[in-house]
């Protein structure tokens, strides 16, 4: 697999896995309005994934968008660990999404300056959506953190539970570094200061405490995942696995 293909899949995989997670809220949202808001976010993410998979498909020259989405196993997925984490309660979802959205806005902002024109265009398009997603998750986090005593305790716990998956977002491996040299990839490690700033700002408003430094989980760039991804994929890929080549 070429570096560019692998890199494109990492971005696409983040979008499809978080999109799948958000689609699981469909009909389970806390209110009708929020239900629709979360499904909208899911659809935005599927749209992003589709764009990046189309590019991956053109680089690969053989596999289709559906092949990438539905016929790869867990070890062949390269999404960041944080997006595959379970929805939990509404606060867990908001915290996970906020931490990822804050990264996503910075990432797409840089990707839109990539020397690879297609990645740059996809990045610019996705950035607009990511900004809205960040606005949505930030506002909810402030509301929950600065809400009742119970909601504060709950989201503080959500934050502690998921914190160990944040370091993975800023990792750089050989593929990243190689593509960074040619001006294609984003330097993830350079995003951490702005991410910190944003996270501190919102946690402050939400009256939440930033978790202490801890061991950070890693592995996604090599296809190593937490136990949740396999379950998610078995659900998402069921139809194509059970009825190969099924079409709408």
């Amino acid at each position, binding site marked *: 697999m070429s570096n560019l293909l692998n890199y494109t899949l990492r971005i696409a995989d983040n979008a499809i896995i978080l999109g799948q997670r958000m689609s699981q809220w469909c009909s389970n949202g*806390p*209110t*009708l*309005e*929020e239900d*629709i*808001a979360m499904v*909208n976010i899911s659809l935005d993410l599927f749209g992003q994934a589709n764009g990046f998979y189309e590019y991956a498909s053109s680089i690969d020259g053989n596999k289709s968008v559906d092949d990438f989405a539905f016929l790869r196993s867990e070890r062949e997925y390269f999404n960041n660990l944080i997006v595959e984490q379970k929805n939990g309660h509404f606060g867990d979802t908001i915290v996970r999404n906020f931490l990822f959205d804050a990264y996503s806005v910075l990432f797409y902002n840089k990707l839109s300056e990539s020397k690879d024109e297609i990645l740059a265009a996809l990045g610019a398009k996705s950035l607009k959506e990511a900004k809205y997603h960040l*606005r*949505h998750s930030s*506002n909810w986090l402030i*509301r929950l953190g600065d809400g009742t005593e119970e909601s504060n305790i709950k989201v503080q716990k959500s934050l502690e539970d998921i914190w160990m998956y944040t370091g993975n977002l800023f990792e750089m491996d050989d593929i990243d570094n190689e593509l960074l040299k040619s001006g294609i990839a984003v330097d993830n490690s350079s995003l951490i200061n702005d991410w910190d700033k944003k996270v501190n700002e919102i946690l402050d408003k939400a009256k939440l405490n930033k978790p202490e430094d801890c061991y950070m989980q890693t592995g996604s760039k090599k296809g190593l995942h937490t136990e949740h991804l396999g379950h998610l994929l078995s659900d998402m890929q069921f139809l194509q696995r059970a009825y190969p080549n099924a079409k709408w």
Partner: protein
Amino acid sequence: MSENTDVWEVFIQSKNGLAHKHVGNVHATDKEMALQNARDLYTRRNEGSCIWVVKSEYIISSESEDGEAFFDPSNDKMYRHPTFYTMPDGAKNI
């Protein structure tokens, strides 16, 4: 959660320069949530360029029993209608 929420009326402006039109309502606990819910519910298909949300309690409505006193007096005042003018060809959105 719905017992903590207020109802907000939603007005969408479809194009710059046109009036905001009432499209429906949403539940929300604060103005930012109302705005975002309105965006998510009423502008999914490219309907708008601007959204207003107003708490329903701040909208004062006339009552149906006021109808006679409010509206009947204008029935016989045809001269208030600009029907005696021809519309210039270029005028739109009037």
